[in-house]
């Protein structure tokens, strides 16, 4: 019987730990569903405007929502925008927001965290004080200010959230580098004359990136939430863009129906709202499961 490579064994054990957790399975199922919807969007909801598929088609301008019908499976919201189309293409928008923000924030955060943790001293001090300054203001408020400063739009929202989000990763990255910076194998590499850059890339980063990745997977949901709120306020993409936050903003005046039937327009808020909640839930469940699976305290072999 061939012995397994220890890294492979470890990997299998981690997978086992992740997937014995029922919430993780739920999270991955939800995520898979959303990925499928996002990939299949052109087939599920054929775009009406070839050049700009994110533009939600609308038939008419009446502000009163229409109930689900054969033509509009989820009904239409205020302004006669098709909710089904917006829900399908909004999935792509949300993935775009989440992945863009997290990759930019990771790039900045990991780089700065690496430099701060590896070099220490004055460099560390300067970088960490800048991070502290960013921490002095609540996330949402700072992001909102930046959006306002650079104008409006979905791309601006993404940049604004990314430019606040990196602060988190610097701290996590630095803390995790500090634990391995002085280990023997790093010193050995230094003695051998390996350049700092190479030590960081080849020896330190692969061994310290996991905590950051777990935090990142837990935070994607939060970014989507903040983006949805900013879009809800009207700081996001122009009217008619497939975006869940904006769909809720359009539904806002119709949360209460006529007195005899208060829930008449439930679909205008329940569908985009449900999409956001499930999307964020998927990421949070995955992040939670990853954290449990990698937690050394809970991990007993």
């Amino acid at each position, binding site marked *: 019987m061939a012995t397994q490579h220890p890294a492979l064994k470890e990997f299998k054990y981690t997978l086992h730990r992740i997937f014995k957790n029922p919430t993780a399975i739920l999270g991955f199922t939800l995520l898979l569903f959303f990925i499928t919807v996002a990939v299949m969007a052109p087939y599920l909801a054929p775009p009406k405007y070839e050049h700009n598929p994110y533009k939600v088609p609308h038939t008419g301008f009446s502000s009163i929502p229409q109930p689900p019908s054969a033509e509009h499976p989820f009904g239409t919201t205020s302004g006669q925008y098709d909710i089904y189309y917006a829900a399908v293409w909004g999935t792509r928008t949300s993935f775009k927001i989440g992945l863009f923000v997290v990759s930019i924030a990771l790039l900045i955060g990991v780089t700065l965290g690496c430099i701060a943790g590896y070099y220490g001293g004055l460099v560390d001090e300067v970088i960490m004080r800048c991070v502290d300054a960013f921490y*002095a203001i609540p*996330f949402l408020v700072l992001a909102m200010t930046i959006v306002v400063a*650079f*104008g409006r739009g979905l791309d601006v929202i993404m940049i604004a959230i990314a430019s606040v989000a990196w602060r988190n990763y610097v701290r996590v990255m630095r803390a995790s580098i500090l634990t391995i910076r002085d280990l023997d194998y790093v010193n050995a590499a230094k003695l051998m004359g390996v350049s700092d850059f190479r030590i960081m890339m080849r020896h330190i980063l692969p061994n310290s990136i996991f905590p950051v990745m777990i935090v990142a997977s837990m935070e994607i949901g939060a970014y989507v939430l903040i983006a949805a709120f900013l879009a809800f306020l009207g700081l996001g993409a122009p009217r008619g863009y497939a975006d869940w936050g904006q769909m809720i903003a359009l539904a806002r005046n119709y949360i209460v129906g006529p007195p005899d039937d*208060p829930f008449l327009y439930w679909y205008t808020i329940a569908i985009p709202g449900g999409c956001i909640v499930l999307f964020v839930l998927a990421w949070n469940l995955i992040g939670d499961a990853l954290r449990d699976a990698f937690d050394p305290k809970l991990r007993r072999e």
Partner: protein
Amino acid sequence: MFSLLMTFSPERRAMVYVTTPQQAKDIPSLIKRYGFDQPFYKQYGRWAKEVASGNFGYSLVASRPVSEAFWIYFPVSLELALYAAPCIIIFGIWMGTKAGRHRNSGFDHFSRVFSIIGWSLPTFLFALVLLMIFYGYTNWFPPGILSDESSLYIIEHPDKFIRYTGLYSIDGILNGNLSIALDSLKHLVLPVITLTVVVCAILMRVMRSGMIEEMSKDYVTTARAKGVDENTILIKHARRNALIPVITVAGTLVALLMEGSVAVEIIFNRQGIGWWLATSAIQLDMPVLMAICLFMGVVFVSVNLIVDILYAVIDPRIRLD
């Protein structure tokens, strides 16, 4: 010293933004007049000087100076925070303790589901749904700050209703006018519920893991061996130690509370700081944005400072270091 540094740089950043909307409107004379074409460190210096002398600029949204408008909006937010904070603390600690004590019980699973849903729920969506049910359907708890009758009464009888604190629920009692106090409390129910559910999740989580850790420690076993009854162990021994990590997240909780109150105040149409901030953001009211950033920064930093001091008070081990 340290906290000074922390509050300073965000405003410096905020100052940069001043130029953008003005340039977009392309009014060169205006830019010249307010010195927006100057290098930004000069602008920042000027702004800092003005702020130091108490001049925060003029708010277009409130159509009065920022510092004056602040005192109109602040009590509304304060009132909300004043009622929400105890709810969050009591509920969070109670649920966390119970979940951590009976690990893997039904209640524990319920609390985990609750916390992860509280985390995934957008505040504004939750608030809208609450409004839909409790205002639209049952008509129990209307949005706003006061009902029309109460606000009309205050406007018509300025001599009978003196605003001591600006908090309607407390002013109502002080003036002996219970109906106004009750009315304002009625308007507070839904905002407080929203904030509690959203902010509670993280507190509960920390409390739960703290309890689990403490309950498995040796001193608990010792106490049990000595025959101390379970409730005393729980409340006097384990919970006290489990509270220490909770205090570390207090800063995060305050930040969450401030963020949450922005959404809550918009949905429930309560004209507080959060509402003011969002409205100013939409109408590009720069002085307000900067002033509120400064205010929230100051609150946040002071909370962290208090937490650090509290930390030493609660845990003598830290004081010795």
